[in-house]
């Protein structure tokens, strides 16, 4: 079936490049918005956007980065680039569906762009109730764009999952899959299950907002009910992005060391455990919002348990890294960066899962910091590690290592400067998404804005370094000709 469609258009490498371009643009836009957000509290009284403008700013920032960058980043870009080769295939199992997924993604991205320009949402990317119900902004466009993008994710995941499954014919078994293939299979299965739940949440919200049906109810627990639906999608979907990140980092580490390969069996089992726990512990987002005591304790335990499989994977890598040889490349640099950010993000997650600290910290920017360490720091460093790994394989050119290391160091520094201060601010009681900064936190706010600027610079250098290496290749090709 794979050979029947050999049109160059459906070639997965081109699709990956297409994703990379749209995604890169969205990433830069989202990062610039982040810079604007970081500046807001500092602009202080007088300057800066209105409260209304600020809400639009963070909503648009979140929507762009989550739906156009974080969720598709690794499966769509690196999956398309590397999966068939990792499986020893020449094409995807469902190339047409894969192409369709990309086309829908582009349509979704355009729809989101229109929404951003003409009808910006103002209730955050997770549409918090009751605000999302009473907000006077027209959320319709954003909801529509999300639904389109969700459709794309379903198609894309279906193809990736099918490709892994199909590859096992001809004597290949599950045991022979690389951790990267495993991670893509698990991550796409997670999306396949989680994304339809997003449809449910979107329909519930749209129906309730339009007044078409009283589905969420206006009863006491309506907003918690919606949040539960939403996070039943959001938590596993983001965890899926992390699973894919784990896979690519495992790949990078194993190609850079000579230590004993971490047991793929342990890694795969851990990833499956992460997937299961991600669905089970989604309630952690409504911890302290009217869950019964037993539910709260159960959710807390499940959320904490999520740390265990991560720990197992990291331990395996550490053992691997101890091997006699280590090849230093920007790819490894970003992989190690991922490792540290994962540890910080994971450990700080414990604060939000342990009941008393969770109730003291929820809705503060501590949660913002934790989310960004994992979702931004983690996904992006894994994406860059993967890009530096895949680039030479795909284009036959080496991006300059010096700039790569420099961008990596800057990225690492930037992420830590941008988000570590938010842990402290959150502890001091700084509410999340506020235009005002808590007394005594001004310098921390400045530090954070500075860190965000560093991240933007690191992104620009990375993009430039990767793209300019392509120009170099053309030259050598001409010279060779």
């Amino acid at each position, binding site marked *: 079936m794979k050979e029947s469609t050999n049109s160059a258009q459906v070639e997965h490498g081109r699709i990956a490049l297409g994703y990379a371009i749209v995604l890169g643009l969205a990433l830069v836009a989202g990062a610039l918005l982040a810079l604007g957000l970081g500046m807001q509290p500092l602009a202080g009284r007088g300057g800066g956007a209105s*409260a209304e403008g600020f*809400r639009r700013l963070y909503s648009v920032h979140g929507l762009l980065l989550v739906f156009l960058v974080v969720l598709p980043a690794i499966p769509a870009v690196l999956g398309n680039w590397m999966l068939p080769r990792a499986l020893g295939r020449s094409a995807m199992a469902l190339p047409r569906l894969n192409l369709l997924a990309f086309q829908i993604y582009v349509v979704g991205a355009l729809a989101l762009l229109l929404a951003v320009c003409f009808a910006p949402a103002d209730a955050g990317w997770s549409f918090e*109730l*009751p*605000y999302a119900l009473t907000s006077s902004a027209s959320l319709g466009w954003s909801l529509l764009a999300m639904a389109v993008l969700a459709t794309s994710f379903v198609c894309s995941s279906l193809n990736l999952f099918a490709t892994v499954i199909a590859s096992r014919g001809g004597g290949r078994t599950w045991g022979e899959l690389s951790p990267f293939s495993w991670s893509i299979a698990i991550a796409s299965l997670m999306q396949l299950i989680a994304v339809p739940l997003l449809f449910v949440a979107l329909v519930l919200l749209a129906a309730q907002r339009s007044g078409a049906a009283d589905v969420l109810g*206006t*009863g*006491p*627990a309506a*907003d*918690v009910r919606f949040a539960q639906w939403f996070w039943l999608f959001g938590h596993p979907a983001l965890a899926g992005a992390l699973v894919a990140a784990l896979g690519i980092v495992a790949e990078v580490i194993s190609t850079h060391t000579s*230590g*004993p390969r971490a047991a793929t069996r*342990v890694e795969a089992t851990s990833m499956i455990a992460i997937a299961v726990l991600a669905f089970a512990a989604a309630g952690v987002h409504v911890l*302290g*919002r*009217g869950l019964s*005591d037993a539910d*709260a*304790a159960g959710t*807390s335990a499940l959320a*904490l348990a999520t*740390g*265990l499989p991560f*720990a197992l994977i990291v*331990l395996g890598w550490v*053992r691997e*890294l*101890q*091997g*006699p*040889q280590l090849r*230093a490349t920007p790819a490894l640099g970003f992989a*190690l960066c991922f490792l*540290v950010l994962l*540890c*910080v993000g994971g*450990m*700080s997650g*414990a*604060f939000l*899962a*342990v*009941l*008393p*600290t969770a*109730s*003291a*910290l*929820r*809705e*503060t920017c501590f949660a913002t910091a934790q989310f960004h360490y994992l979702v931004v720091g983690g996904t992006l460093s894994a994406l860059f590690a993967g890009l530096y790994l895949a680039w030479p394989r795909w284009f036959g050119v080496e991006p300059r290592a010096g700039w790569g290391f420099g961008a990596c160091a800057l990225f690492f520094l930037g992420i830590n400067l941008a988000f570590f201060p938010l842990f402290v601010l959150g*502890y*001091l*009681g700084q*509410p999340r998404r506020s235009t*005002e900064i*808590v*007394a*005594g936190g001004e310098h921390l706010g400045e530090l954070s804005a500075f860190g965000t600027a560093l991240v933007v610079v690191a992104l620009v250098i990375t993009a430039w370094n990767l793209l300019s290496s392509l120009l170099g290749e053309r030259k050598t090709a001409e010279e060779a000709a």
Partner: protein
Amino acid sequence: MSATLAFATGGMLPQASSFAASVDQSFDLVTWFAVFLGVLVTGGLSLLLVGPRAPAAVQRRRLMQYGALAALLLVVGFFVQGARVWADMQVVPRGAFPIAVALEDKGWSFTYPNGFVTGELHLPIDRPVRFLFKGSERAYSFAIPAFRMQVPVALREDRVAWVQPTLAGEFDLRTSIDPRAETSIQVQVHAEGGFDKWYQDISGPDLTLPPIELGQKSYQMRGCTQCHTVDGSKLVGPSFKGFATRIHKLTDGTTVEPTDEYIKESVLDPQAKVVEGFEPVMPSFRGRLQDIEIAGLAAYIKSLQ
């Protein structure tokens, strides 16, 4: 919280409630471990990068087993410690001082057991306080970082929480759920004895006193003396001397008889009828005085010759 953060932030956030210490303990537990892990990971990685490479034979075989066991113990430890503190926070102690809380358009409103309603939050030290949060048409959260307390109140849903302040002083109270309602005020925790005095002041006179005596007490306790006198001298407001034997001329040129109704209206809705020669600056006492106390005031004011 922990020494780490206190150090990082110059100790800006005090431990002002009995929870603060135990929540901070949870905090410390996780923080110290996070720091430990951070040092281990970053240090270990740096060593790996610059240090000599171990020969293949000397791989730490048991790393996985021990590491996994340590992680498991930690997770269980975190959970148990946290759950204990949490359980403590759920059970309101008997005899806690009750205060009803609501967030209205004009800001917070706190109702004390004597029926006194105010926008200020005053708390006793070292005594448990039970908050009853009244659900309203908007969800809000009630957060006092110095107490490590944050209570989310859902739409139209009542909720109970308690806290025991352990430090006198003023602390920030914030709300953060609904982005439109950023209402931050100061909570006043009175030092030993200070709260009782404040509470007695707002409690007003003993309502079982005979009307004129009740009125006199009320006149003194409710701050009427800031603007009124009984000896004929003018302050911000007219004197009550000979109140019952005068005709009261108003700014609109009409006059009014010194009846009980007029006094009641003056107290509840002072701007309805403004006495000639005075500014309309008297505050309304609506919600602060019960009818019986107003009747006492009327009796007292009319009794002044």
